[in-house]
Protein backbone atom coordinates (compact mmCIF):
# COMPACT_ATOMS: atom_id res chain seq x y z
CA UNK A 1 0.00 0.00 0.00
CA UNK A 2 2.88 2.31 0.69
CA UNK A 3 4.61 2.41 -2.64
CA UNK A 4 1.90 2.47 -5.21
CA UNK A 5 2.69 5.82 -6.70
CA UNK A 6 1.68 6.20 -10.24
CA UNK A 7 5.06 6.24 -11.94
CA UNK A 8 3.91 8.23 -14.96
CA UNK A 9 2.74 11.17 -12.94
CA UNK A 10 5.51 11.04 -10.38
CA UNK A 11 8.25 11.87 -12.84
CA UNK A 12 6.46 15.02 -13.80
CA UNK A 13 4.84 16.24 -10.62
CA UNK A 14 6.84 16.29 -7.39
CA UNK A 15 6.02 13.71 -4.75
CA UNK A 16 5.68 16.38 -2.12
CA UNK A 17 4.57 19.87 -2.91
CA UNK A 18 4.43 22.44 -0.12
CA UNK A 19 3.02 25.86 -0.87
CA UNK A 20 2.94 28.97 1.29
CA UNK A 21 3.10 27.15 4.58
CA UNK A 22 2.76 29.38 7.63
CA UNK A 23 2.80 28.69 11.32
CA UNK A 24 3.17 31.21 14.11
CA UNK A 25 3.43 30.73 17.86
CA UNK A 26 2.32 34.03 19.23
CA UNK A 27 4.77 36.53 17.83
CA UNK A 28 7.22 33.88 16.66
CA UNK A 29 6.78 33.07 13.00
CA UNK A 30 8.31 29.63 13.02
CA UNK A 31 7.30 28.85 9.45
CA UNK A 32 6.87 31.91 7.34
CA UNK A 33 5.58 31.04 3.90
CA UNK A 34 7.64 28.03 2.99
CA UNK A 35 7.51 26.56 -0.52
CA UNK A 36 9.16 23.24 -1.05
CA UNK A 37 9.05 20.54 -3.71
CA UNK A 38 10.50 17.05 -3.37
CA UNK A 39 11.01 14.89 -6.43
CA UNK A 40 10.49 11.20 -6.13
CA UNK A 41 13.71 9.41 -5.29
CA UNK A 42 15.74 12.41 -4.21
CA UNK A 43 17.38 13.17 -0.93
CA UNK A 44 16.56 16.73 -0.15
CA UNK A 45 18.38 18.29 2.78
CA UNK A 46 16.96 21.07 4.89
CA UNK A 47 19.50 23.07 6.80
CA UNK A 48 19.42 26.23 8.82
CA UNK A 49 20.40 27.75 12.12
CA UNK A 50 18.95 26.53 15.37
CA UNK A 51 15.39 27.60 15.77
CA UNK A 52 14.98 28.30 12.06
CA UNK A 53 11.81 26.24 11.99
CA UNK A 54 12.97 22.93 10.58
CA UNK A 55 11.37 20.71 13.18
CA UNK A 56 8.25 22.83 13.06
CA UNK A 57 8.09 22.30 9.33
CA UNK A 58 8.46 18.55 9.77
CA UNK A 59 5.74 18.55 12.40
CA UNK A 60 3.40 20.20 9.94
CA UNK A 61 4.34 17.80 7.17
CA UNK A 62 3.63 14.78 9.32
CA UNK A 63 0.42 16.24 10.69
CA UNK A 64 1.31 16.84 14.32
CA UNK A 65 0.88 20.56 13.90
CA UNK A 66 -1.82 22.18 11.88
CA UNK A 67 -0.46 25.02 9.71
CA UNK A 68 -2.06 28.45 9.87
CA UNK A 69 -2.03 28.71 6.12
CA UNK A 70 -0.71 26.94 3.06
CA UNK A 71 -1.09 23.52 1.56
CA UNK A 72 0.71 20.21 1.62
CA UNK A 73 0.21 17.92 -1.35
CA UNK A 74 1.51 14.37 -1.21
CA UNK A 75 1.53 12.39 -4.45
CA UNK A 76 -1.12 14.63 -5.96
CA UNK A 77 -3.40 14.46 -2.96
CA UNK A 78 -3.96 17.37 -0.61
CA UNK A 79 -3.22 16.07 2.88
CA UNK A 80 -3.20 19.40 4.72
CA UNK A 81 -6.23 18.55 6.80
CA UNK A 82 -5.40 14.91 7.53
CA UNK A 83 -4.49 13.73 11.02
CA UNK A 84 -1.00 12.42 11.66
CA UNK A 85 -1.99 8.76 11.74
CA UNK A 86 -3.87 9.09 8.48
CA UNK A 87 -0.82 10.61 6.80
CA UNK A 88 1.32 7.84 8.18
CA UNK A 89 -1.03 5.38 6.52
CA UNK A 90 -0.55 7.21 3.27
CA UNK A 91 3.11 6.29 3.37
CA UNK A 92 4.68 9.07 5.37
CA UNK A 93 7.27 8.16 7.94
CA UNK A 94 9.43 10.24 10.22
CA UNK A 95 12.18 10.08 12.78
CA UNK A 96 12.33 12.32 15.79
CA UNK A 97 15.06 14.71 16.77
CA UNK A 98 14.46 13.80 20.41
CA UNK A 99 14.12 10.02 20.50
CA UNK A 100 10.56 8.66 20.63
CA UNK A 101 10.53 4.91 21.09
CA UNK A 102 8.60 2.37 23.15
CA UNK A 103 10.90 1.93 26.15
CA UNK A 104 9.31 -1.25 27.49
CA UNK A 105 9.51 -3.08 24.20
CA UNK A 106 12.63 -4.77 23.00
CA UNK A 107 14.58 -3.36 20.12
CA UNK A 108 13.09 -5.93 17.79
CA UNK A 109 9.55 -5.34 18.98
CA UNK A 110 9.88 -1.67 18.18
CA UNK A 111 10.62 -2.50 14.57
CA UNK A 112 7.91 -5.18 14.44
CA UNK A 113 5.45 -2.60 15.66
CA UNK A 114 6.47 -0.24 12.92
CA UNK A 115 6.04 -2.97 10.32
CA UNK A 116 2.74 -4.31 11.54
CA UNK A 117 1.18 -0.89 11.41
CA UNK A 118 1.85 -0.81 7.66
CA UNK A 119 -0.03 -4.03 7.04
CA UNK A 120 -3.54 -2.72 7.61
CA UNK A 121 -4.28 -5.67 9.86
CA UNK A 122 -3.21 -4.00 13.05
CA UNK A 123 -6.65 -4.10 14.61
CA UNK A 124 -6.56 -7.84 14.78
CA UNK A 125 -6.86 -9.18 18.28
CA UNK A 126 -5.90 -12.80 18.09
CA UNK A 127 -2.53 -13.70 16.62
CA UNK A 128 0.78 -12.69 18.11
CA UNK A 129 2.87 -10.57 15.74
CA UNK A 130 6.04 -11.65 17.54
CA UNK A 131 5.46 -15.11 16.14
CA UNK A 132 4.88 -13.91 12.61
CA UNK A 133 7.96 -14.96 10.64
CA UNK A 134 7.59 -12.39 7.88
CA UNK A 135 7.39 -9.55 10.34
CA UNK A 136 10.24 -10.67 12.56
CA UNK A 137 12.53 -11.57 9.70
CA UNK A 138 12.04 -8.24 8.06
CA UNK A 139 12.51 -6.44 11.37
CA UNK A 140 15.70 -8.35 12.06
CA UNK A 141 17.00 -7.43 8.64
CA UNK A 142 16.52 -3.73 9.35
CA UNK A 143 18.28 -4.06 12.67
CA UNK A 144 21.19 -5.56 10.78
CA UNK A 145 21.19 -2.60 8.42
CA UNK A 146 21.60 -0.07 11.21
CA UNK A 147 24.00 -2.27 13.17
CA UNK A 148 21.83 -3.25 16.08
CA UNK A 149 21.47 -6.97 15.31
CA UNK A 150 23.20 -7.99 18.52
CA UNK A 151 20.88 -5.78 20.59
CA UNK A 152 17.58 -7.19 19.28
CA UNK A 153 16.41 -8.67 22.57
CA UNK A 154 17.35 -5.73 24.79
CA UNK A 155 14.66 -3.48 26.21
CA UNK A 156 14.94 -0.07 24.68
CA UNK A 157 15.10 1.60 28.07
CA UNK A 158 18.46 -0.11 28.63
CA UNK A 159 20.06 1.19 25.45
CA UNK A 160 22.76 3.84 25.29
CA UNK A 161 21.76 7.13 23.75
CA UNK A 162 23.52 6.49 20.46
CA UNK A 163 21.93 3.10 20.10
CA UNK A 164 18.52 4.61 20.54
CA UNK A 165 19.35 7.00 17.74
CA UNK A 166 20.20 4.05 15.51
CA UNK A 167 16.94 2.35 16.39
CA UNK A 168 15.03 5.53 15.77
CA UNK A 169 16.27 5.39 12.20
CA UNK A 170 15.51 1.69 11.80
CA UNK A 171 11.93 2.18 12.94
CA UNK A 172 11.42 4.93 10.39
CA UNK A 173 13.11 3.10 7.56
CA UNK A 174 11.48 -0.26 8.09
CA UNK A 175 8.12 0.91 6.89
CA UNK A 176 9.39 1.39 3.31
CA UNK A 177 7.71 4.75 3.29
CA UNK A 178 6.76 6.74 0.26
CA UNK A 179 8.24 9.81 1.90
CA UNK A 180 10.70 9.78 4.76
CA UNK A 181 11.21 12.77 7.03
CA UNK A 182 14.42 12.53 9.01
CA UNK A 183 14.97 15.05 11.79
CA UNK A 184 18.66 15.06 12.67
CA UNK A 185 19.15 11.31 12.39
CA UNK A 186 22.89 11.54 13.02
CA UNK A 187 22.63 13.63 16.16
CA UNK A 188 23.97 11.70 19.11
CA UNK A 189 25.68 9.07 17.01
CA UNK A 190 29.41 8.59 17.08
CA UNK A 191 31.61 9.22 14.08
CA UNK A 192 31.57 5.59 13.06
CA UNK A 193 27.83 5.25 13.27
CA UNK A 194 27.34 8.51 11.43
CA UNK A 195 29.47 7.24 8.62
CA UNK A 196 27.64 3.97 8.63
CA UNK A 197 24.23 5.65 8.48
CA UNK A 198 25.44 7.87 5.70
CA UNK A 199 26.39 4.81 3.74
CA UNK A 200 23.10 3.17 4.53
CA UNK A 201 21.07 6.14 3.38
CA UNK A 202 23.21 6.41 0.29
CA UNK A 203 22.30 2.83 -0.51
CA UNK A 204 18.65 3.68 -0.24
CA UNK A 205 18.93 6.56 -2.66
CA UNK A 206 16.47 6.46 -5.55
CA UNK A 207 14.36 3.88 -3.73
CA UNK A 208 13.39 6.26 -0.96
CA UNK A 209 12.40 9.88 -1.09
CA UNK A 210 13.91 11.63 1.88
CA UNK A 211 13.68 15.03 3.47
CA UNK A 212 16.78 15.25 5.63
CA UNK A 213 17.27 17.76 8.43
CA UNK A 214 20.81 17.57 9.73
CA UNK A 215 23.53 19.71 11.23
CA UNK A 216 26.26 17.21 10.35
CA UNK A 217 27.55 18.84 7.20
CA UNK A 218 29.68 15.87 6.16
CA UNK A 219 26.55 13.78 5.97
CA UNK A 220 24.54 16.48 4.25
CA UNK A 221 27.08 17.13 1.56
CA UNK A 222 27.64 13.44 1.03
CA UNK A 223 23.99 12.60 0.65
CA UNK A 224 21.91 15.49 -0.58
CA UNK A 225 20.84 15.93 -4.18
CA UNK A 226 19.50 19.33 -3.37
CA UNK A 227 19.65 21.50 -0.29
CA UNK A 228 17.17 24.06 0.97
CA UNK A 229 18.33 26.63 3.48
CA UNK A 230 15.82 27.87 6.02
CA UNK A 231 16.43 30.97 8.10
CA UNK A 232 13.87 32.46 10.46
CA UNK A 233 11.08 30.44 8.94
CA UNK A 234 11.85 31.48 5.35
CA UNK A 235 13.64 29.56 2.64
CA UNK A 236 16.50 31.72 1.49
CA UNK A 237 17.97 29.41 -1.04
CA UNK A 238 17.58 26.06 -2.76
CA UNK A 239 20.31 24.46 -4.81
CA UNK A 240 22.89 21.73 -5.23
CA UNK A 241 25.43 21.12 -2.49
CA UNK A 242 28.09 22.98 -4.37
CA UNK A 243 25.92 26.00 -4.87
CA UNK A 244 25.03 26.04 -1.21
CA UNK A 245 28.61 25.67 -0.11
CA UNK A 246 29.64 28.75 -1.98
CA UNK A 247 26.60 30.86 -1.26
CA UNK A 248 27.77 33.83 0.81
CA UNK A 249 24.52 34.36 2.67
CA UNK A 250 24.37 30.73 3.70
CA UNK A 251 27.90 30.83 4.93
CA UNK A 252 27.24 33.90 6.97
CA UNK A 253 24.01 32.69 8.50
CA UNK A 254 24.82 29.09 9.03
CA UNK A 255 28.03 27.47 8.00
CA UNK A 256 30.59 29.83 9.38
CA UNK A 257 34.01 28.49 8.47
CA UNK A 258 32.76 24.95 7.98
CA UNK A 259 32.65 25.05 4.19
CA UNK A 260 36.33 25.81 3.76
Amino acid sequence: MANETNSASSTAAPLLQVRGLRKAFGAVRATDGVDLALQKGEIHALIGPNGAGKSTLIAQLCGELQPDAGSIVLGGEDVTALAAFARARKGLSRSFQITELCPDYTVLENVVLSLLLTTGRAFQAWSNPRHDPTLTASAARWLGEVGLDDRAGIHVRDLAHGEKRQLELAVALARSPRLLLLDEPMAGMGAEESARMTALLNGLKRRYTILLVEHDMDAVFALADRITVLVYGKTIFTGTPDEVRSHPEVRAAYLGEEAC
Partner: protein
Amino acid sequence: MLTVEALTGGYGGSQVLFGMDFEAGAGQAVSLIGRNGMGKTTTVRTLMGMLPARGGRIVLQGTLLTTLAPHAVARLGVGLVPEGRRVFGSLSVEENLLATARRPSSAKGWTFDRVLTLFPRLRERRRQSARTLSGGEQQMLAIGRALMTNPLLLVLDEATEGLAPLIRHEIWDCLRSLKQEGLTIIVIDKNLTEMASLLDRHHIVEKGRVVWSGTPDELRARSDLAHRYLGI
Protein backbone atom coordinates in the same frame (compact mmCIF):
# COMPACT_ATOMS: atom_id res chain seq x y z
CA MET B 1 41.84 18.75 40.06
CA LEU B 2 39.94 15.56 39.30
CA THR B 3 41.24 12.03 39.55
CA VAL B 4 39.27 8.95 38.60
CA GLU B 5 40.83 5.68 39.64
CA ALA B 6 39.79 2.13 38.83
CA LEU B 7 36.16 3.18 38.75
CA THR B 8 33.61 0.40 38.31
CA GLY B 9 29.86 0.71 38.06
CA GLY B 10 26.79 0.04 35.99
CA TYR B 11 23.04 -0.37 36.01
CA GLY B 12 21.27 -2.97 38.10
CA GLY B 13 22.53 -6.32 36.95
CA SER B 14 24.77 -5.12 34.16
CA GLN B 15 28.23 -3.79 34.73
CA VAL B 16 29.33 -1.07 32.35
CA LEU B 17 32.48 0.41 33.83
CA PHE B 18 35.41 -1.93 34.32
CA GLY B 19 38.04 0.26 35.91
CA MET B 20 38.02 3.72 34.40
CA ASP B 21 41.20 5.72 35.01
CA PHE B 22 41.85 9.29 34.01
CA GLU B 23 42.56 12.67 35.40
CA ALA B 24 42.10 16.30 34.59
CA GLY B 25 44.49 18.86 36.02
CA ALA B 26 43.32 22.27 37.10
CA GLY B 27 42.66 24.45 34.08
CA GLN B 28 42.98 21.53 31.71
CA ALA B 29 40.50 20.34 29.14
CA VAL B 30 40.27 16.61 28.51
CA SER B 31 37.95 14.42 26.48
CA LEU B 32 36.31 11.04 26.72
CA ILE B 33 35.77 9.62 23.28
CA GLY B 34 34.71 6.28 21.95
CA ARG B 35 31.96 4.43 20.20
CA ASN B 36 28.31 4.43 21.23
CA GLY B 37 27.51 2.52 24.37
CA MET B 38 31.07 2.27 25.67
CA GLY B 39 30.36 3.88 29.02
CA LYS B 40 31.15 7.56 28.61
CA THR B 41 27.84 8.76 29.93
CA THR B 42 27.90 6.12 32.62
CA THR B 43 31.23 7.52 33.80
CA VAL B 44 29.76 11.00 33.98
CA ARG B 45 26.70 9.80 35.87
CA THR B 46 28.83 7.95 38.37
CA LEU B 47 31.06 10.97 38.79
CA MET B 48 28.04 13.11 39.53
CA GLY B 49 26.72 10.66 42.09
CA MET B 50 23.66 9.89 40.00
CA LEU B 51 24.77 6.27 39.86
CA PRO B 52 26.52 4.52 42.71
CA ALA B 53 30.15 3.65 42.17
CA ARG B 54 30.77 -0.02 42.84
CA GLY B 55 34.49 0.31 43.22
CA GLY B 56 37.34 2.72 42.71
CA ARG B 57 37.73 6.35 43.67
CA ILE B 58 36.81 9.74 42.34
CA VAL B 59 38.65 12.63 43.97
CA LEU B 60 37.99 16.29 43.31
CA GLN B 61 40.46 18.67 44.84
CA GLY B 62 41.14 16.27 47.65
CA THR B 63 37.48 15.45 48.34
CA LEU B 64 36.25 11.93 47.75
CA LEU B 65 33.14 12.10 45.60
CA THR B 66 32.12 8.46 45.48
CA THR B 67 29.82 8.60 48.47
CA LEU B 68 28.29 12.01 47.86
CA ALA B 69 24.81 12.81 46.61
CA PRO B 70 24.58 14.68 43.30
CA HIS B 71 23.74 18.01 44.86
CA ALA B 72 26.78 17.76 47.10
CA VAL B 73 29.00 17.01 44.12
CA ALA B 74 27.51 19.93 42.25
CA ARG B 75 28.09 22.21 45.20
CA LEU B 76 31.76 21.31 45.14
CA GLY B 77 31.85 23.04 41.81
CA VAL B 78 30.95 20.52 39.15
CA GLY B 79 28.65 21.83 36.44
CA LEU B 80 26.91 19.33 34.19
CA VAL B 81 25.54 19.64 30.69
CA PRO B 82 23.78 16.30 30.48
CA GLU B 83 23.31 14.08 27.52
CA GLY B 84 19.97 14.75 25.91
CA ARG B 85 19.68 18.34 27.23
CA ARG B 86 17.19 17.66 30.02
CA VAL B 87 16.05 21.23 30.35
CA PHE B 88 13.10 21.89 32.66
CA GLY B 89 10.25 21.90 30.22
CA SER B 90 7.64 23.66 32.29
CA LEU B 91 9.91 26.52 33.25
CA SER B 92 10.60 29.47 31.05
CA VAL B 93 14.06 30.05 29.63
CA GLU B 94 14.71 32.66 32.24
CA GLU B 95 13.57 30.44 35.08
CA ASN B 96 15.69 27.58 33.79
CA LEU B 97 18.73 29.76 34.08
CA LEU B 98 17.88 31.29 37.44
CA ALA B 99 16.43 28.34 39.34
CA THR B 100 19.68 26.57 40.06
CA ALA B 101 22.05 29.50 39.62
CA ARG B 102 24.79 30.06 42.16
CA ARG B 103 26.57 33.31 42.82
CA PRO B 104 29.95 33.66 41.16
CA SER B 105 32.96 33.71 43.46
CA SER B 106 34.70 36.38 41.45
CA ALA B 107 33.48 39.40 39.63
CA LYS B 108 34.17 37.68 36.33
CA GLY B 109 31.71 34.92 37.01
CA TRP B 110 28.67 34.00 34.98
CA THR B 111 25.56 36.09 35.31
CA PHE B 112 22.21 35.98 33.63
CA ASP B 113 23.23 38.77 31.30
CA ARG B 114 26.49 37.21 30.34
CA VAL B 115 24.79 33.95 29.35
CA LEU B 116 22.24 35.81 27.26
CA THR B 117 25.07 37.66 25.55
CA LEU B 118 26.71 34.36 24.73
CA PHE B 119 23.44 33.01 23.31
CA PRO B 120 21.46 35.93 21.87
CA ARG B 121 18.90 33.41 20.67
CA LEU B 122 17.96 32.70 24.25
CA ARG B 123 17.41 36.36 24.94
CA GLU B 124 14.80 36.41 22.19
CA ARG B 125 13.09 33.42 23.79
CA ARG B 126 13.34 34.53 27.41
CA ARG B 127 9.72 34.01 28.39
CA GLN B 128 9.07 30.95 26.26
CA SER B 129 8.65 27.66 28.10
CA ALA B 130 11.66 25.45 27.54
CA ARG B 131 9.56 22.56 26.27
CA THR B 132 8.73 24.42 23.08
CA LEU B 133 12.27 25.48 22.27
CA SER B 134 13.93 24.01 19.24
CA GLY B 135 16.43 21.24 19.82
CA GLY B 136 19.40 23.52 19.41
CA GLU B 137 17.94 26.20 21.60
CA GLN B 138 17.43 23.66 24.34
CA GLN B 139 21.04 22.67 24.01
CA MET B 140 22.13 26.27 24.43
CA LEU B 141 19.94 26.52 27.45
CA ALA B 142 21.46 23.41 29.00
CA ILE B 143 24.94 24.87 28.56
CA GLY B 144 23.85 28.21 29.93
CA ARG B 145 22.22 26.57 32.91
CA ALA B 146 25.42 24.76 33.81
CA LEU B 147 27.45 27.94 33.44
CA MET B 148 25.07 29.77 35.75
CA THR B 149 26.16 27.48 38.59
CA ASN B 150 29.63 29.01 38.14
CA PRO B 151 31.46 25.70 38.22
CA LEU B 152 35.14 24.96 38.66
CA LEU B 153 34.81 21.82 36.58
CA LEU B 154 32.48 21.78 33.60
CA VAL B 155 31.31 18.44 32.22
CA LEU B 156 29.82 18.52 28.75
CA ASP B 157 28.20 15.31 27.58
CA GLU B 158 27.50 15.67 23.87
CA ALA B 159 26.86 19.32 24.37
CA THR B 160 27.05 20.20 20.70
CA GLU B 161 24.52 17.63 19.55
CA GLY B 162 22.04 19.30 17.26
CA LEU B 163 23.78 22.63 17.13
CA ALA B 164 24.35 24.41 13.88
CA PRO B 165 27.99 24.63 12.77
CA LEU B 166 28.19 28.34 13.44
CA ILE B 167 27.02 27.96 17.02
CA ARG B 168 29.29 25.00 17.55
CA HIS B 169 32.22 27.16 16.64
CA GLU B 170 31.12 29.82 19.00
CA ILE B 171 30.85 27.31 21.78
CA TRP B 172 34.32 25.95 21.20
CA ASP B 173 35.63 29.51 21.18
CA CYS B 174 33.84 30.21 24.39
CA LEU B 175 35.19 27.08 26.03
CA ARG B 176 38.67 28.07 25.01
CA SER B 177 38.38 31.39 26.71
CA LEU B 178 36.85 29.76 29.79
CA LYS B 179 39.79 27.45 29.95
CA GLN B 180 42.04 30.43 29.82
CA GLU B 181 40.20 31.81 32.82
CA GLY B 182 41.12 28.65 34.69
CA LEU B 183 38.06 26.42 34.28
CA THR B 184 38.64 22.70 34.09
CA ILE B 185 36.67 20.97 31.35
CA ILE B 186 35.67 17.42 30.48
CA VAL B 187 34.18 17.00 27.02
CA ILE B 188 32.40 14.08 25.45
CA ASP B 189 31.89 14.76 21.78
CA LYS B 190 32.28 13.31 18.37
CA ASN B 191 33.75 16.30 16.54
CA LEU B 192 37.41 15.43 16.99
CA THR B 193 38.75 18.08 14.68
CA GLU B 194 36.70 20.86 16.20
CA MET B 195 37.74 19.88 19.70
CA ALA B 196 41.43 19.56 18.93
CA SER B 197 42.40 23.16 19.59
CA LEU B 198 40.70 23.14 22.98
CA LEU B 199 41.94 19.91 24.44
CA ASP B 200 45.02 18.97 26.37
CA ARG B 201 44.29 15.27 26.35
CA HIS B 202 42.04 12.69 24.75
CA HIS B 203 40.92 9.51 26.51
CA ILE B 204 39.58 6.74 24.36
CA VAL B 205 36.99 4.66 26.15
CA GLU B 206 36.36 1.09 25.11
CA LYS B 207 34.08 -1.27 27.02
CA GLY B 208 34.22 0.70 30.25
CA ARG B 209 37.99 1.33 30.31
CA VAL B 210 40.34 3.99 29.08
CA VAL B 211 42.38 2.16 26.50
CA TRP B 212 44.50 4.99 25.26
CA SER B 213 45.23 8.54 26.19
CA GLY B 214 47.34 11.23 24.63
CA THR B 215 47.36 14.68 23.14
CA PRO B 216 45.28 15.56 20.09
CA ASP B 217 48.46 15.68 18.02
CA GLU B 218 49.40 12.16 19.05
CA LEU B 219 45.93 10.96 18.17
CA ARG B 220 46.11 12.58 14.77
CA ALA B 221 49.41 10.86 14.16
CA ARG B 222 48.02 7.43 15.04
CA SER B 223 45.30 6.86 12.46
CA ASP B 224 45.21 3.19 13.46
CA LEU B 225 43.78 4.19 16.85
CA ALA B 226 41.04 6.25 15.36
CA HIS B 227 40.21 3.40 13.05
CA ARG B 228 40.27 0.76 15.73
CA TYR B 229 38.42 2.52 18.52
CA LEU B 230 36.45 5.23 16.85
CA GLY B 231 35.71 3.60 13.52
CA ILE B 232 36.98 6.43 11.41
